[in-house]
């Protein structure tokens, strides 16, 4: 891998990390568990690994943006996450900022 490729990979990684919270909040409107969320995000084209997602889910839960509950009715107990009322408010604000940033970047790209 050339030096340019390494730089691009790192920068793309940074870009993706920045949008990860938005992606998770958008995909937890329905109650969902970790692995199912990984699959849902991957099917949408967001390449995220389990070991990155689970700590992120816990962090968002700690910040009260997600609520969680254990489902022990099935053979394997699973922890389900869902966006909280505070999470919805944050999501709305984040979405507005995302759209604004996107608009600015697009304007700059058109000028180039």
């Amino acid at each position, binding site marked *: 891998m050339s030096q340019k490729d390494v730089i691009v990979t790192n920068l793309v990684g940074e870009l993706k990390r920045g949008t990860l919270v938005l992606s998770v909040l958008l995909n937890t409107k329905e109650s969902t*568990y*970790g*692995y199912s969320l*990984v*699959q849902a995000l991957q099917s949408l084209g967001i390449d995220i690994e*389990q*070991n*990155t997602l*689970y*700590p992120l889910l*816990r*962090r968002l839960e700690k910040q009260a943006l997600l609520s969680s509950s*254990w489902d022990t009715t099935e053979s*394997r*107990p*699973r*922890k389900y996450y869902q966006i909280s009322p505070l999470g919805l408010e944050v999501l709305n604000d984040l979405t507005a900022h995302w759209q604004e940033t996107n608009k600015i970047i697009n304007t700059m790209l058109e000028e180039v």
Partner: protein
Amino acid sequence: MKLIEQYIYAIGKYLPYNSRKDIKKELYASLLDEIEATYGENPTQKELEAAITAYGTPRQVANRYKENNLVIGSGYTDLFFFISKLIIFALSIAFTIIFVIGLLEGDLTPNKIIVDIARTIARIIGASLSAIAWVGIGFIILTRLNNDHHIDLEDDWTPKDLADIHIGPEGESKIESGLSIFFILVFIVIINTMPFLPSIAESIISSIYCMVPKPRKWFYLIC
């Protein structure tokens, strides 16, 4: 799936105690979900090993769950390193001065000089480590008390504070504060190493006092 249980147990050893049980339970279920989706319900030992390898070492996995547990807040780091360097510098100077005084007072045999040099180096290292450790403990306590790892020592700064700044050579104020700490440290070390110094100073002052003519009785009456 003993291997998975052993893996989860190994991860648990590095996890924060409060959330360990919950994280382990979730990890176990999630890992089994992934293994089942990738290799089916009855994976071989090799497939299990491949899944675990892809997931990461126990320490790597646990570290992702840890928040930025900084021992010393990022706002204090520069100050801590600055004081640490100053301590080493000041103690080196102080012990070198003591070494030179010792040389001038004692015998100048080569053996004694070598022993004294070694002793001075050992003292510098020992005293520096001890002083830096105490300073470090102080900063750790400060960080814990603030409970905020992104400490900004200048969070109450306003542009009005610029009014007191007189433009001069760069680093002047840093050197000034650095020198004051340096001289305090040198003073403490010298007083500790040579406790007889204050009594010598006292006797010099009293002998000067004796040489000065004493005021007459009428002076006290006026006063």
